[in-house]
């Protein structure tokens, strides 16, 4: 008989007052007892609506049943049939919009904590499993993967498990893509990403860092080197700015730069060689997960006050619900229905050599109200005439999305892109070039880790089928 309590078993977390000043993980994870208790809440529905909500269709009721029995390794095996990065997805998926949204228990009360259970299972496996990975026999085919973020790792993992020799080319010095440079330690510890990458290496996946495809090597050269297919998972590209005055002042960052300095370049560690503006009053413009990450990072780096400045209302915030809640608990101030119109800087008219010249001092904003719904059904924010006001600010972090990176497009003949610069692909990830597949943010623009992973898996399947077909001929 299922446990009919209407609420999820709470996730143990670090105290907000303490965690606002450290980079340790916020959520601490379920114990074995709590996990089994939470698993009791699953009704084991016949039609499994949750599975259809998962971009990689994990057999959710089946793995939860194993948790209920206390067979955690069994649960892990079920998850890993569909997901290559369970410890990552259990932490960063927006479950409330995916599997948990479809959960029957969510109709009256809270859905089953599927994400929390997934995380528990993956962590349990990482801590307890001693099973050695045995890579399958080499099938004689080589595939190149561009980028070691979620889509690239998922694609590489699936192909390697089928016997392909996969090489992943990474532009930066560390594998993991956005999981390493973008998502902060307190939400996704880097040791977890490193562990997932290590597992892939055991499947004979080679990871070549410091290789920028489109520059160091081109897609065409990869084919010359004997790769039979290429998957492009190069991720999102250049940050967008608002185009308002003052965005080039000192103290204005893109979220990508701010987070890269802190995460990848380790400015979050004391005595780091990487400079970053810390302290003072920080405004983060935007309302997505990246904005929440930037705001909470700024807080941990020692900011006095951190604002999220978002032009719609709390309802429309695109960030994961849990991240918004955590941010609020930590003391991030939400200035909603507010839009910046100008960033103000210091300028000493009497002394052009004044060292403070050119640094941010404030941000002029305007109040917004919600008007008619736009084409996506979200109510369009409109300016309230005459409502301008100025916020006292030292650092501004722009977190309003990215445009795809042009390096591969510019050096690959015949690769079709759409008007926003995203690579055009068919349903199974095939681009306009034979043997070239793509997925993740390089195709869709900024989206989620799990949808990128899903695209990597879809492409892996298509690549396998295409190469097998060639074999038959």
């Amino acid at each position, binding site marked *: 008989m299922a446990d009919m309590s209407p609420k999820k078993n709470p996730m143990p977390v670090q105290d907000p007052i303490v965690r606002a000043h450290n980079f340790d993980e916020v959520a601490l994870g379920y114990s074995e007892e709590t996990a089994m208790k939470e698993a009791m809440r699953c009704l084991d529905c016949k039609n499994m609506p949750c599975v259809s909500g998962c971009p990689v269709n994990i057999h959710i009721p089946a793995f939860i049943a194993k948790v209920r029995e206390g067979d955690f390794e069994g649960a892990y095996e079920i998850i890993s049939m569909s997901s290559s990065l369970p410890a990552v997805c259990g932490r960063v998926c927006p479950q409330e919009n995916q599997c948990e949204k479809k959960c029957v228990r969510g109709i009256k009360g809270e859905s089953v904590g599927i994400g929390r259970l997934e995380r528990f299972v993956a962590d349990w496996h990482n801590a307890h499993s001693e099973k050695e990975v045995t890579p399958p026999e080499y099938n004689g085919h080589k595939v190149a993967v561009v980028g070691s973020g979620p889509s690239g790792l998922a694609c590489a993992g699936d192909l390697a498990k089928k016997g392909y020799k996969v090489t992943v080319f990474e*532009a*930066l*010095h560390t594998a993991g893509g956005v999981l390493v*440079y973008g998502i902060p330690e307190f939400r996704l510890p880097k040791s977890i990403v490193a562990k997932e990458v290590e597992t892939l290496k055991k499947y004979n996946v080679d990871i070549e*860092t*410091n*290789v*920028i495809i489109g*520059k*160091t*090597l081109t897609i065409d050269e990869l084919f010359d080197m004997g790769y039979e297919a290429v998957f492009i998972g190069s*991720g*999102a*590209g*250049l*940050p967008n*700015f608002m*185009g308002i005055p003052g*965005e*080039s002042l*000192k*103290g204005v*960052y*893109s979220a*990508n*730069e701010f987070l*890269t*300095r802190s995460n*990848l*370049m*380790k400015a979050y560690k004391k005595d*780091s*060689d*990487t*400079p970053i503006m810390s302290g003072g009053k920080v405004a983060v413009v935007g309302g997505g997960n990246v904005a929440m990450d930037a705001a909470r990072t700024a807080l941990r780096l020692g900011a006095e006050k951190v604002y999220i400045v978002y032009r719609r209302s709390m309802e429309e915030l695109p960030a994961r619900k849990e991240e918004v809640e955590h941010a609020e608990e930590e003391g991030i101030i939400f200035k909603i229905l507010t839009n910046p119109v100008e960033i103000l800087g210091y300028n000493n008219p009497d002394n052009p050599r004044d*060292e403070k*010249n*050119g640094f941010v001092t404030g941000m002029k904003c305007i109040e917004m109200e919600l008007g008619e719904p736009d084409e996506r059904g979200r109510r369009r924010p409109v300016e309230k005439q005459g409502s301008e006001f100025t916020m006292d600010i030292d650092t501004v972090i722009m977190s309003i999305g990215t445009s795809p*990176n*042009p*390096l591969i497009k510019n050096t690959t003949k015949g690769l079709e892109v759409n008007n926003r610069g995203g690579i055009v692909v068919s349903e199974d990830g095939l681009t306009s070039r034979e043997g070239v597949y793509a997925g993740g943010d390089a195709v869709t623009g900024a989206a989620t880790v799990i949808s990128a992973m899903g695209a990597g898996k879809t492409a892996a399947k298509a690549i396998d089928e295409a190469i097998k077909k060639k074999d038959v001929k």
Partner: protein
Amino acid sequence: MYRIATKKVLNKSVTQMEIEAPLVANKAKAGQFIILRVDEEGERIPLTVAGTDKENKTVKIIFQTVGATTLKLAEKNEGEYISDFAGPLGTPTHTEGIKNVCIIGGGVGCAIAMPVAEEFKRLGADVTSIIGFRNKDLVILEEEFRNISDKLTVMTDDGSYATKGNVTQPLKEYLENGEKFDMIIAIGPVIMMKFVVETAKPYGTPVTVSMNPIMIDGTGMCGGCRLTLNQDGKKVTKFACVDGPDFNGYEVDFDEAMSRGRMYSDFEHHAYEKTCNLFKGGRENG
């Protein structure tokens, strides 16, 4: 890991190295740059390619010790390794249709200007070079420039060597005497590039400048290297790492670029001092 094949001290603050990096050596062209990290905890710094040796698969870099990272790099010796070396990044210098070029290098910018001048020479253009330094001790690459230039002028700010003054003086003389350059290419401190543009403006001679802003990834991801161009009265944001590093000098907002370049000067100074103390005793020319 990438091996330091050769190392040569050019003056007390400028060092030349050849780094073994076959893939980069195979591709790099004049005007492009690389990103390196000295060690596992180090920052990523961009350095312009100063030449390649395709046979030995090495890439030449020339750098000035200005911060903690360049100081750490300068302390490395031949045969030692650095942890990361990625590239080539940025677009190569535009050479098409340019038959008469004036190359202006300022200080360590000469290290970038030299391979550009070399490339023009190889393509058969007339190369007039003007190189400037603060003083005699800082002069680098004079011999190399002499070998590849049809005309060469060396300037020092204090007159301790060659002609006293800055690089815009000989440029102005050339232009006043009716010299018709197809292109002036200025590479050096931002302030120098700004004044080269102002000098050339009355004569309508096109100027290309090579911008070297603060960068992190260098691959078109972080946006730290952004600068503002004024194109047809409109302000346009560009990224030096993917759109540059070469830009039309008449469009660049130099004052903004200078201001942005000083964003971390306090921090840099502090980090340099810290690293400097670390090496104290083992270093003669501090």
